[in-house]
């Protein structure tokens, strides 16, 4: 019913009182939002609760969306703030690679992945698992750039950074991802390179 409509058209319908058309936006962005939230927490139930909260917030503040940026960029800003707030409330660490406990956490996660290496993984699930091995910051930047298809400028708006800083962050995140893949999925990586 709403498939042919642009985000802006759907938003103007919602603002005119057609609450049901908001479901089109939910359907369109739920996977992106859920994936981004999963970069902050590994617990699916938590991720689902946060994602739901994000869409409710987006709905309530829809009148504040001025159309200066893409709707997705505006929505992902809510994703970031809501996820961080939720994690703070739950007193779970909003991890950064600089923090010591993050490194410990990552090492633990890595060892569990090593144990599971026996089973063969598809290329896609390998990348997915390698992204999960990254810090939330790195994983978030990579997901925004590759999966949510946001430009460096848009990611800058979401993260509150200069595009050049985002570029450096993205570059470092890719290096770390490549290292994780080579370290944890060396067999699959060799297969990909045809060695």
């Amino acid at each position, binding site marked *: 019913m709403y498939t042919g409509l642009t985000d802006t058209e759907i938003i103007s319908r*919602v*603002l005119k009182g057609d*609450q*049901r058309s*908001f*479901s089109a936006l*939910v*359907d369109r962005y*739920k*996977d*992106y939002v*859920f*994936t981004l939230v*999963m970069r902050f927490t590994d617990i699916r139930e938590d*991720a*689902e609760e946060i*994602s*739901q909260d994000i*869409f*409710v917030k987006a*709905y*309530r*503040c*829809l*009148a*504040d969306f001025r159309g200066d940026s893409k709707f997705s960029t505006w929505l992902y800003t809510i994703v970031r703030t809501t996820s961080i707030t939720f994690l703070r409330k739950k007193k779970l660490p909003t991890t950064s690679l600089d923090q010591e406990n993050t490194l410990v956490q990552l090492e633990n996660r890595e060892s569990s992945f090593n144990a599971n290496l026996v089973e063969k993984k598809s*290329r*896609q*699930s*390998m*990348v*997915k698992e390698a*992204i999960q091995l990254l810090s939330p910051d790195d994983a978030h930047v*990579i997901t925004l750039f*590759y*999966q949510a298809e946001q430009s*460096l400028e848009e990611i800058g708006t979401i993260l509150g950074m200069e595009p050049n800083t985002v*570029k450096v962050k993205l*570059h470092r995140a*890719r*290096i770390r*991802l*490549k290292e994780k*893949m080579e370290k944890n999925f060396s067999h699959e990586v060799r297969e*990909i*390179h045809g060695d």
Partner: protein
Amino acid sequence: MRYGKYMVIKREDNDSGIWSELYDKNGQPLKINKMNEQEQIEDRLWNYIDGLSDPAEKSVIDQLITANIEWRRKYHELLEVHQLMSDAPLDAPSMRFTKNVMEEIAKYQIAPATKNYINKRVIWGISIFFLVMITGFLIYGFSQINWNAENTTSTEILNQYNKLPKFDWSKFMTNTYTNIFMMINVVLGLILLDMYLQHKKEMRAKNLETKN
């Protein structure tokens, strides 16, 4: 071969590394730090893959990928990673997710845009008030300085400060003034509470109207 600010020179010897093929217009090697060679190659190739290279650099990298086996190998390796990341599957929430969201938002109304309820005149008023205060203090402060004084030391400055007419705040900090101040605050608080409850009542009435 020249490409804008870069120039590619094919060398016969293979022992000088990949970057030795990249020279500036004067024929000087562009990059000589071999420690960071791999990093620099990757950095440039990522920019190239992301479409962030400028046309001159793009031409040089095109040329290097075609001519140099090491650049070609690295390019394909990074391109593969790029492709894998772009194709990484998205996580999906439960089947009922959209329904849950729609049930939840049915309880809410869209809040009016922030710019509608923040009165710009109030913001301007506050800004002007503070600007006037700051300017007033500055003018008063500067007017008290003796610009003709020579060899002023810190002790003299302190003496001059002590000579300034003192404002006696203590006469305003009496019980009567404090009580008046507190009473005004209480009255303002009650007015605000009344406004909030009135607004809530109106919203509830509007909700009932929409549901009916």
